[in-house]
């Protein structure tokens, strides 16, 4: 039997090898596709922590993805325009340095996750799904109609932001960055799962009464998980914006929330390898199916339906023959 560890390392290695092989074969677009998969996987790693481990079915994770994207867009736009941001008496210079942008993206989306989590966690079950969806819609409509940063047109950044010592415009180098962050986030989640925090969170999903009787507040665990989850997805959003050199309200749309959820489930909810497998499979399908038939969404829908109905545990479940964690 393939262990979770082997599967996860294998999936990551495969993604890296595909990108490297494409680079050697001078197929930069395949590298871009692999980068897209890595970023989606990172967003899914975030959601998987809340959803797979914490049982929080969030249909609003695009909020964090979008906030990360706008953190990048706004900072880089101000730098590009040589106009500092003014918040009251404060003047903040924009930046085109990736590490600084990442920090802001993580902080902003984590903070948003904290506020949304505080409100949303008062509810449970379907209500939680719906309230997270509602927050997503609020951010979406706000972003569409707020004129300051492009509204529905979004913001275009002409040059990809920089990272010390790297040429981020080179597809393979940018892939390397995204891949490293994905690996780090996966490692972080793997560590969390082994630590008391992950143990308690995992148990709180399955038997909240028991966890409470063991002296642990499930709600606080969930809130903490939601914040970390939002922050990771926010980081992915910043990278996604940099991949496209563009950010728009579409990053807040509920379809995107749905897609992030699809990555998680397709790969295997709660599985460490799930996000990578799911995102890579999705990107590959999007690419190949899109070329086969104009109405390829039908095929995608049928495939998803098949996975939900007949392959519980997603791809990871199929590979390891176990539908559970």
């Amino acid at each position, binding site marked *: 039997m393939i262990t979770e560890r082997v599967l996860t390392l294998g999936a990551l290695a495969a993604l890296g090898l595909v990108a490297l092989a494409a680079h050697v074969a001078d*197929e*930069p*677009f*395949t590298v*871009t*596709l692999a980068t*897209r998969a890595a970023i989606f996987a990172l967003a899914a790693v975030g959601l998987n922590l809340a959803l797979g481990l914490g049982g929080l079915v969030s249909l609003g994770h695009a909020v964090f993805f979008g906030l990360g994207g706008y953190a990048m867009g706004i900072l880089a736009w101000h730098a590009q325009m040589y106009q500092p941001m003014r918040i009251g008496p404060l003047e903040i210079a924009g930046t085109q340095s990736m590490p600084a942008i990442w920090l802001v993206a993580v902080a902003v989306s984590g903070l948003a996750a904290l506020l949304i989590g505080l409100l949303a966690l008062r509810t449970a079950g379907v209500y939680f799904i719906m309230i997270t969806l509602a927050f997503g819609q609020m951010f979406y*409509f706000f972003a*569409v*109609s707020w*004129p300051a940063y*492009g*509204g*529905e*047109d*979004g913001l*275009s950044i*002409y*040059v990809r932001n920089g990272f010390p010592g790297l040429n981020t415009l080179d*597809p393979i180098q940018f892939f390397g960055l995204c891949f490293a962050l994905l690996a780090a986030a996966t490692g972080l989640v793997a560590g969390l799962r082994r630590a008391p925090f992950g143990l308690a969170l995992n148990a709180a999903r399955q038997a909240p009464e028991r966890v409470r009787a063991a002296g642990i507040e499930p709600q606080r665990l969930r809130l903490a998980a939601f914040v970390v989850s939002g922050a990771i997805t926010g980081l992915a959003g910043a990278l*996604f914006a940099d*991949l*496209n*050199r*563009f950010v*728009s309200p*579409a*990053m807040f749309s509920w379809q995107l929330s749905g897609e992030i959820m699809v990555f998680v489930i397709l790969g295997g909810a709660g599985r460490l390898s799930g996000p990578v497998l799911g995102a890579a499979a999705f990107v590959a399908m999007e690419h190949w199916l*899109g*070329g*086969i038939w*104009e*109405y390829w*969404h039908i095929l995608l829908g049928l495939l998803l339906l098949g996975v939900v109905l007949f392959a519980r545990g997603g791809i990871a479940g199929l590979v390891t023959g176990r539908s559970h964690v």
Partner: protein
Amino acid sequence: MMRSARPALFAAAALAALAGTAAAQTKVGMITTLSGGGASLGVDTRDGFMLAIEQAGRDDIEVVIEDDERAPDRAVQIADRMIQSDRVDVLTGIVWSNLAMAVVPSGTAQGKFYLSTNAAPAQLAGRGCHPNYFAVSYQNDNLHEAAGAWANQAGYADTFIMAPNYPAGQDALTGFKRFYEGDLAGEVYTDLGQTDYAAQIAEIRASGADSVFFFLPGGMGISFLKQYADAGVDLPLIGPAFSFDQGILQAIGAAALGIRNTSQWSKDLDNEANRAFVAAFEAEYDRLPSLYAAQGFDTANLLLSALDKADIGDPEAFRAALREADFDSVRGDFTFAPNQHPVQDIYVREVIEEDGVFTNRIVGTAMEDRANAYVDDCTMTQ
């Protein structure tokens, strides 16, 4: 080639393959909306463009067509692929301004030409203009400006103006006000994608306006016009062509009859190129061409005219050839302003019913030789 198995592109490419000629010399990447809500616009753009390519009968042009699903990130991804993998020389086809803003700046920065079949946002006409970017359609504000100019000609003095709350909507109202000289009875922003306009129609009725200017593209316009007609408000409406396009007029039906709308093209424009285009389009696709089809057709012909004069491998020469705009536009006279947007007449059309089909006919000219408001902001203008 296996990746791009979309129905329309074989035309040129398959021909080349059959004839056993060498690989195509010019590669064009068309990114447009072929699925979802706005698909009709992209389908017409594609069909108009491909009609011109087919008519040219050239086997050295390959067109790769991809569906952007109206999603900016998808458009960017396709553009990346076309540039990095297909190695196209020219990009074109984007319908929506927000998608254009996502694709065009980085595409032109990478040395590709972009010929716009439709979207032409202010940013790309002013400070963000680029030597490799040509808008063949118009500048986004043009039709709204023409509506304002027409309102003056028609003697309207108290107009109620309305658009969705997003940049193109805000630009629309700004554009209208740029030439309109009367008073505003009201200025209202609706939600993007709004489907029920009962509240706004009640406001219009209560405002005491003498006319209504509105910009509501796609399904929004269909909803508004049906509801407006049904509400029995009889104030004259004026709007840009987008809500009265051939593709959607049939869905609005009689509610649109008699409404004036501004357009730089119309099916009944009386010139040789246009008559031939309308006939050929109908023969090929069995439906009347739309504005988007006409813009697609003109864009392809502009490209062909430049390819006749210069090698695309020589960007300087090719750019100069494009600037000459030496092709028979279906709009008649056509030249480029210094910021590479059209200088053209903008007409007023009226919706009529003709042989059981709803369509437009020209009733006047709103503006002559109109360029755009951003020429002076563009650094190429010296």
